[in-house]
């Protein structure tokens, strides 16, 4: 089976509740950030991005918040559904993309 995420932090959320997934990035000069979702057995899928001149961006059921002061990025998923179960990871860009290791989100029915 899929071995991605054997040692990942995990987050369990009740179906219908909101999920907040956090990411600490390393480079204060990073100017672009992306959140990806990776379901078991699949490649990463783009969810939402944000540039460093913004602190919030909203998509469909998702919101990304950027706090440059503490180099922190978060992904909020509203009204979590079973299909949201996946590994979520952030990526930061300064000259190149650097990926985090991810958080496994599990939805409790």
């Amino acid at each position, binding site marked *: 089976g899929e071995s991605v995420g054997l040692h990942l932090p995990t987050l369990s959320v009740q179906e219908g509740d909101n999920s907040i997934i956090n990411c600490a990035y390393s480079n204060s000069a990073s100017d672009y950030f992306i959140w990806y979702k990776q379901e078991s057995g699949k490649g990463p*899928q783009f969810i939402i991005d944000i540039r460093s001149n913004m602190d919030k961006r909203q998509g469909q059921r998702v919101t990304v918040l950027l706090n440059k002061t503490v180099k922190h990025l978060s992904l909020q998923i509203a009204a979590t559904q079973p299909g949201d179960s996946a590994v979520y*990871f952030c990526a930061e860009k300064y000259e*190149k*993309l650097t990926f985090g290791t991810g958080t496994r989100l599990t939805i409790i029915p």
Partner: protein
Amino acid sequence: DVKVTQSSRYLVKRTGEKVFLECVQDMDHENMFWYRQDPGLGLRLIYFSYDVKMKEKGDIPEGYSVSREKKERFSLILESASTNQTSMYLCASSGPGIGTGSEQYFGPGTRLTVT
């Protein structure tokens, strides 16, 4: 929709074999990438290419080579596979702009096991 396809989902090879992983994208993207993904380590860039016949080393190029003869196709080659190359290999592509920034579209991955 962007589609990135990889030639195999699962592959088992023996130590010392030459291995070819193929990636094709259908969006006329300039940039293509090869990553490996291992538990606890995230995605690590092996090689990338920003144009036909152009290639740049990523963070972990040792033991790998690449080929980009056509814009839509980017191949990863393991000249002599070793057990420490057992991993999930992910191909990605992105639009204009040199470098590895901007949104990347990923293929489904190839899980390679070297025995």
